[in-house]
């Protein structure tokens, strides 16, 4: 624990800018993953333990696409779209077969998918770490904001993720589909009784969730390394985000993802050995004070 360093950081603008940027990156990427977890949980009442696998595969698909096409744009698109498709296949082929049965069956299927794809990734891409490298266009001198170093790629990442958050928020509140999704999150039976095609709706929700996770994995690939099993820590953090934000709440997911991101950003300064633990402590504290989460409806 180094509170002195934390104090020193908080009083210098350079350090604040740098740590905030890294916190925002973590937070925004986490939001993209957690938004899918919370959407799927909200609409289908399914805890998708395989969501981290979408994130991991999105990263690997982007890595390979970049190698083949040399276009970062295409790589990100490929990561997101392939995982949207994967999400649909996962829902149709596996999860849809155990709707309404024991929760344990859903859990078990997700567990199996995690195990299978962790090994498949090892077989296809090897067990070693891969670095995707910064896209060429961004290999330029960093920006300096208030004395803090901000690589342009980071700024772009935050921008893209923020854009997606806005699109997602608007889409949920303005479009017909979005309203249906939100209604289904409140009462799926009622929505089904009103004549909405829930089969299609569930598939769409998994497509959106999978696509967002794949996008996050692809976006993160240049700043983090790729390795089999990398999805799991992201999964746990997105669970924490979902729980803190309130199950099924997109706004809650955004707020708590940013909170977790910032706790991480500044935690590495104040508690370098215990950053992970810090996040759990935040989670436990919030659960004790507000068991339904920051934005959750009272249970």
């Amino acid at each position, binding site marked *: 624990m180094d509170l002195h360093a934390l104090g020193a950081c908080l009083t210098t603008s350079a350090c604040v800018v740098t740590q905030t940027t890294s916190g925002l990156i973590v937070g925004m990427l986490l939001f993209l993953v957690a938004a899918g977890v919370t959407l799927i*949980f909200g609409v289908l*009442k399914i*805890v998708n*333990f395989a969501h981290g696998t979408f994130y991991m595969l999105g990263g690997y698909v982007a890595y390979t696409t970049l190698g083949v096409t040399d276009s970062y744009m295409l790589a990100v698109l490929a990561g997101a779209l392939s995982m949207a498709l994967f999400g649909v296949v996962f829902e149709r082929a*596996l999860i849809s*077969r*155990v709707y309404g*049965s*024991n*929760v*344990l*069956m859903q*859990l*078990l*299927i997700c*567990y*199996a*998918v*995690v*195990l*299978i794809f*962790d*090994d*498949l990734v*090892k*077989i296809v891409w090897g067990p070693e770490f891969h670095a995707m490298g910064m896209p060429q266009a961004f290999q330029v001198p960093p920006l300096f904001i208030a004395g803090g170093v901000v690589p342009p790629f980071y700024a772009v990442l935050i921008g893209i993720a923020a854009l997606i958050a806005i699109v997602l928020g608007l889409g949920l509140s303005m479009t017909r589909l979005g309203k249906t999704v939100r209604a289904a999150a409140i009462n799926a039976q009622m929505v089904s009784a009103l004549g909405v095609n829930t089969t299609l709706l569930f598939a769409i929700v998994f497509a959106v969730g999978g696509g967002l996770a794949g996008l996050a994995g692809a976006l993160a690939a240049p700043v983090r390394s790729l390795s089999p099993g990398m999805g*799991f820590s992201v999964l*746990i953090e997105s*669970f*924490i985000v*979902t*729980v803190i934000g309130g*199950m099924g709440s997109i706004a809650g997911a955004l707020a708590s993802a940013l909170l977790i991101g910032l706790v991480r950003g500044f935690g590495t300064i104040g508690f370098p*050995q*215990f950053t*992970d*633990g810090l996040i*759990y402590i935040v*989670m*436990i504290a919030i*659960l*004790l004070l507000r*068991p*339904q989460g920051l934005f959750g409806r009272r*249970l």
Partner: protein
Amino acid sequence: MKGNRRSGTRETAIAAVALLIVLVVPFVHRSPAFEDFVIRLSSMALFATSLNLLVGNTGMVSFGHGMFYGLGAYAFALMMQMTELSLPVAAMLAVLFTTVAALCVGAICVRLSTDYFAFITLAFQMLIYSVIISWQSLTGGDQGLRGGLPRREIFGFDLASQLHLYQCCAVVAVLGLLALRHISASPFGQTLRMIRDNESRTGFLGVVLWRARLWAFTIAGGFAGLGGVLAALFVSGAYPELADWPNSGQAIFAVMLGGINSFLGPVLGAAILLALNDAVARVTEYQGLVLGIVILIFALGLRRGVLDFLRVAWSKDSQ
């Protein structure tokens, strides 16, 4: 209807016979592989059966049960290495420690809605796991606790000898399972089934729901800790993998595979799973891939644990 005292005696008799057979085997035929298997099974059986107290009896889906297994192993190994306590005392203290830990974690978790439960328990497991990994000076970090367990003798048994370890584990596991069976057959066990069946009605009968759930969680945590103690004895130390999430997944699979509605289901499931893991490990390094496919076949095809399956078939036959 059978008298309940008689069914209790019958169970004890069955357990005694089973234990006797297991204890006699090495005198007839020594097989290190078999003895190894029984030692690991005794640990896994306690772990899975204690999980089933939550999952099958109470309907509480915990995905973090492995944390108590890991805690039990670490608490026991650390006490053996760092203190002069005798083995049974250290084992009892380790179980006590795990029970208290389960009480604390449970106090936070059981009041939350059941939807949250799987999330939160897994998050707590990862908290424990990250503490184990990062508290290197105490736990040895990702290398685990090495250096073996000293003074491994108990009542003249030397647990460094595989035969003695085998006997000790079998006795502990059978006693532990009997205790769990007794709890499950007690009024409290019945209360847990009531909660699983119909929570709101149970509340109207005067049962304090959160308290019943918390006790169940605490008891299950304690028995998982006992399983962890046996695991620590077997590996002669403790490793972070014992507290990692795939371990919880394995226990859930064992429970489902054997059957959640039969008391011995998880034991059978644990045995099948261990045998499967061993067989797969001999063939390929991609155990996850194979295990995952097996799980999918089970979840989409069989959909019911082996013992539950047999019980349903049996009752159809007898009708």
